[in-house]
């Protein structure tokens, strides 16, 4: 380098080059091939293509049941774990995967984007015996057409430390009503996800009927603002927002959290460890009086699937009685397959998780994607998911 060259000048050149590149890329807005409607459903399951590429929640595709599947069908299973629903949607949009275990807050987005195809349930023999209250739901069936095979479900429960929280609460008010919640300041545990706004909506649906909330995932601006302001009042009282189950387990075990929203998985795990925890009493059908949010996952097939036969074989395999029992127990959720309850290792597993209790699930609002378009009458005046994400940032502050 020559003596008279200035490092500053070089730096500016690099910055200028960077800016030029940015403008270049920003300018060429490529016209995206916007596919709508998805592909066609399969007519007949043919021969194995030799492999299948899946996007799944951690714990849904494990060697214990994917290895026997490979031996039986000759389809090698490649799995990519998705951390969140949002990430799964991104992965499916890449077109490199055959199928996905989508939660209700991803499925509508996938159908809307044309990323998944309808499922021909006649090609999935085990579909027949799936719990009927899981079929034909707004998050797995669109325009009367099934788009997936139900995998399992869970509810978001209210859990509390029975040594510290007395008397046993029966309502979400213990963590959502500003006055009641104040006595547990710093000990409240809340789920760290924009979808948690729906929990506030479930509470408001019961306690403020004037708002007229029907579906906690389809909120008008007014209803949405009410739910958000409830959570903003809750925020200073929250000891911890959790997103990983292990994080919540450790704070309940150490006493940092005393009451909050949880999954059945954490509750039973803490109980097994001998910690003094209780979840919403059984007399209430295990849920607070308002009901609760929950999730129900669905296996969907990509509209660009390169191995559709293997994907259909997988969808049938994962809801076969024995495998569905295995995966439900491994993950800690209620199986979708009604015959699975005969195959669980713990005899009372289905009872504990209320798998065969439709009355329990009637009061669970399964996660859905909040969309701007919420039904014909109200038009496009609901708050869409992007706004939920932004509001969540504001709530946490």
């Amino acid at each position, binding site marked *: 380098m020559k003596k008279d060259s200035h490092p500053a000048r070089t730096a500016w050149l*690099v910055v200028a*080059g*960077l800016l030029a*590149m*940015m403008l270049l*890329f*920003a*300018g060429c*807005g*490529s016209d*995206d091939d*916007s596919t709508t409607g998805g592909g066609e459903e399969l007519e007949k399951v043919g021969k194995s293509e030799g492999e299948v590429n899946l996007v799944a929640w951690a714990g849904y595709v494990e060697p214990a049941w994917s290895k026997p599947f490979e031996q039986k069908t000759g389809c090698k299973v490649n799995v990519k774990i998705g951390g*969140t629903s*949002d*990430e799964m*949607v*991104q992965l499916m949009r890449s077109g490199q995967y055959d199928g996905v275990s989508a939660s209700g807050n991803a499925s509508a*987005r996938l159908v*809307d*984007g044309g990323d998944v195809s309808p499922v021909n349930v006649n090609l999935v023999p085990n579909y027949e015996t799936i719990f009927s209250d899981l079929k034909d739901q707004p998050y797995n069936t669109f325009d009367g057409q099934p788009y997936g095979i139900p995998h399992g479900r869970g509810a978001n429960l209210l859990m509390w430390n029975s040594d510290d929280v007395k008397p046993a609460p029966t309502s979400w008010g213990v963590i959502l009503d500003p006055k009641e919640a104040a006595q547990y300041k*710093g000990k409240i545990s809340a789920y760290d996800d*924009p979808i948690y706004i729906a929990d506030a909506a479930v509470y408001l649906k019961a306690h403020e009927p004037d708002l007229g909330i029907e579906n906690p995932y389809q909120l008008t601006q007014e209803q949405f603002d009410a739910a958000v302001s409830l959570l903003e009042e809750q925020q200073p009282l*929250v*000891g*911890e*927002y959790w*997103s990983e189950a292990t*994080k919540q387990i*450790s*704070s309940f075990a*150490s*006493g*940092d959290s005393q009451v909050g929203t949880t999954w059945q998985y954490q509750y039973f795990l803490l109980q097994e460890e001998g910690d003094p925890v209780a979840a919403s009493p059984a007399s209430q059908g295990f849920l607070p009086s308002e009901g609760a949010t929950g999730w129900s996952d669905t296996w969907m097939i990509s509209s660009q699937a390169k191995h559709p036969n293997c994907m259909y074989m997988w969808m049938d395999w994962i809801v076969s009685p024995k495998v569905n029992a295995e995966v439900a127990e491994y993950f800690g959720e209620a199986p979708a397959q009604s015959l699975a309850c005969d195959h669980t290792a713990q005899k009372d597993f289905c009872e504990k998780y209320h798998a065969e209790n439709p009355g329990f699930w009637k009061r669970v609002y399964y996660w859905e994607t909040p*969309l*701007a*378009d919420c039904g014909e009458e109200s038009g496009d005046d609901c708050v*869409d*998911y*992007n*706004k939920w*994400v*932004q509001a*969540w*940032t*504001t709530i*946490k*502050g």
Partner: protein
Amino acid sequence: MTTEAVAEKRSVGRRLAGLFHGRPRLQVGALLAGPLGWLVIGYLGSLALLLVAAFWTVSPLSGELDKTLSFESFEILFDEPVYRDIVVRTVTIAALVTVTDAVIAFPIAFYMAKIASRRMKAILVVAVLLPLWSSYLVKVLSWRTMLSADGIINWALEPFGLTGPEFGNTAVWLVMSYLWLPFMILPIYAGLERIPNSLISASEDLGASPLTTFRRVILPLSFPAVVAGSIFTFSLTLGDYITPRLVSNNQFIGNVIYNNISTNLPLASALALVPIVVMIAYLLVARKLGAFEHI
């Protein structure tokens, strides 16, 4: 191998050598093409692509990217007070961590560089580097255990009627200061090593008190090293999002980027510009203070 083949080979080598002979620019260019290509295409290119996304928008209906020029994400950043709070919080904690680490690191580095015996010096260098051998996550999670309500810190403070910090900004400050301390000690140690002992002796001979020697000789000479270390601690704190998530409820810039990256890439990209701008400003000040003079 036949002699012709050897001759053939040699002639290719010769020709290449001939090509480069007397052309210093070509020599340097060929040498730097690989690393510079990596820097420009792999590193700056991907950075540029990310930043370009800040000028796009997301369609609310399908959630797909609308790749036309727009400033919507920046408007959100400037209009919503919550983002200002998050930026201020992140930068404040980063500054606090930097000051804390500088204050703790200086005496340790000074002892290592000027006082410790050769053996002690080796032991201390290993002791400083040792925490870097264990996983970052393990360290943060052990702090989480220590800081929890029935953790060791509260247990130790209890006899004195005190309680340790709860999960929150204080906890983040503590854990970050712990995590990045080695990155402050090592540059200061290197900087102090470079100061000749004769300068300190000369200062003493001229009648300066130890404090004056420190203030007028050691500190000015080692200050660039402190600034160099502060670049590490400041930028590492600025970019971290796992520690805040594990030991507090507070959102830092990284947390908001993480939350938005899959649903609203433009907003995440616009936010990603904030630490870049802060760091550029910081580096310009650091350059003025002479942090890069010995690199």
